């Protein structure tokens, strides 16, 4: 499903984030990526979401090399991916419902269908009762869950999460990990970057450890 072939990423600052990475993920797998901060976890996810391009090597998703995608094909590709950031990047001038609805609006869905899907996604993360609230009225954990709802509302085939539990208390972090496991059981390929070793071990999933490049 996702394949890295000898991928190196060097930023324009000269910093090498990834060096000669080879990686294969099957469809429907759930994988954790761990490593110290600066080991290139975020970079790896960004390469999949095409937020960055590799300096060398090739990343393929669903058998298609990403460097073959033209600029105009990128938006359609990104719609198949749900990306969850450490900071959920919510739009503060819109309600929770409207925030979660954005991906559906982009794909031009009808109002009734949007309502149904947004409710389903909010229900999934346990925030159905807060749909009319605004992001600033929510706690950090709730905002993170809104971010997750927005990432999954379009039913993506791949879910990428960059430190989704970074600033949450352990119980909530555990909850969120279980939510991801649920999405995985429903068929999505899930890739989570986390430095929380204890939590990752408890999930008992395949784990990839990135070491800092010397």
């Amino acid at each position, binding site marked *: 499903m996702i394949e890295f072939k000898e991928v190196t990423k060097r930023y324009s600052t000269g910093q090498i984030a990834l060096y000669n990475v080879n990686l294969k993920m099957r469809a429907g797998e759930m994988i954790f990526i761990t490593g110290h901060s600066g080991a290139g976890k975020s970079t790896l996810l*960004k390469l999949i979401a095409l937020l960055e391009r590799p300096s060398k090597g090739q990343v393929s998703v669903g058998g298609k090399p990403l460097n073959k995608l033209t600029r105009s094909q990128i938006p359609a590709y990104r719609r198949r991916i749900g990306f969850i950031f450490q900071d959920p*990047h919510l739009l503060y001038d819109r309600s929770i419902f409207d925030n979660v609805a954005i991906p559906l609006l982009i794909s031009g*869905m009808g109002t009734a269908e949007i309502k149904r899907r947004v409710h389903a996604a909010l229900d999934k993360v346990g925030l159905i009762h807060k749909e009319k609230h605004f992001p600033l009225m929510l706690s950090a954990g709730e905002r993170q869950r809104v971010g997750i709802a927005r990432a999954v509302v379009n039913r993506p085939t791949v879910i990428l999460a960059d430190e989704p539990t970074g600033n949450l208390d352990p119980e909530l972090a555990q909850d969120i990990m279980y939510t991801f496991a649920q999405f995985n059981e429903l068929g999505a390929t899930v890739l989570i970057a986390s430095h929380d070793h204890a939590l990752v071990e408890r999930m008992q999933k395949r784990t990839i450890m990135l070491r800092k490049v010397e």
Partner: protein
Amino acid sequence: MANRQRKPRSRSQTKRTGPIRAWFHQQRNAVRFSLNRLWFNPVSTWITLAAIAIALSLPTSLHLLLNNMQTLTDDKREVPTITLFMKQNVNEQQTKDRAELLKELPEVSAVQVITREEAMEDFKQIGGFAETLETLPENPLPHVLILTPKLSFLNTNEALTKFSDKLKAYREVGNIQVDIEWIKKLRSILNIADRIVLVVSVLLGLTMLLVIGNTIRLDIQNRKEEITVTRLIGATNTYIRRPFILGGFWLGLFGGVISLVIVHFALLFLIAPVNDLAREYGSNFTLHGINFTMTLQILVLSSVLGTVGAWLAVSQYLWKSEVVSEN
């Protein structure tokens, strides 16, 4: 959590809305969204609209002024004439023949013959001349043709000159007196004014483009986060651009409407003194307002300028920020 009967995720992600309906949904959402933006930022919206309306009403009113001046040279108003004095040796029949021939010309609307006898009678009516004329051995006056031209055929100064040269060249004609010199002069002035209006219009059109472009640019700055997020989620540039361009369109359109209102009120303000002046001169001149075509032209022009201004602003931003990195 009862209604969790999701099918496994596959490429055919449930029943997708058809592409045409999807497109309509997106358009409708963009229209609603862009109007909301204007409505909920009343201060900046009104300031921009006022700037656009003023920028538009200036060239519009100048243009209108010019149009009104031009109607002074129209056919139906004060009818200017060309007087043809026949040579002394030309007799009455020859004069009448020439008059018939002149009537055939497309540039001529009417020809009136005044024989030298009639002219004499006229002169005698004017007090004091009668005795002087008695002393003359014969009638010194020539036969005269008074010709009313069709100005629609002579709408340039060159055509006018050419026509009077042609009249002068007739064998029978001794001298001509063109009573339409003032029209020539007025036209020359109007031609200059026309150019001035054009220059002013272009400059103010550019101003409008900049005002709208800048408004949209500020709007983009305020919504940078939103653009980044929607892009990460998979919005196309077209999708991102749409509400901004519509925003520019609305600003242009509403600005045009307000400018029409301004010009209209200015006209109402002017109508009474202009009519007074016209009456003083015994003229039936009336002020012409903005007609339907002009209204349409202004609205189309202003909305096109608004759209273009917004398009430039968004495209410039999207192009600059094409390489997306997080945040």
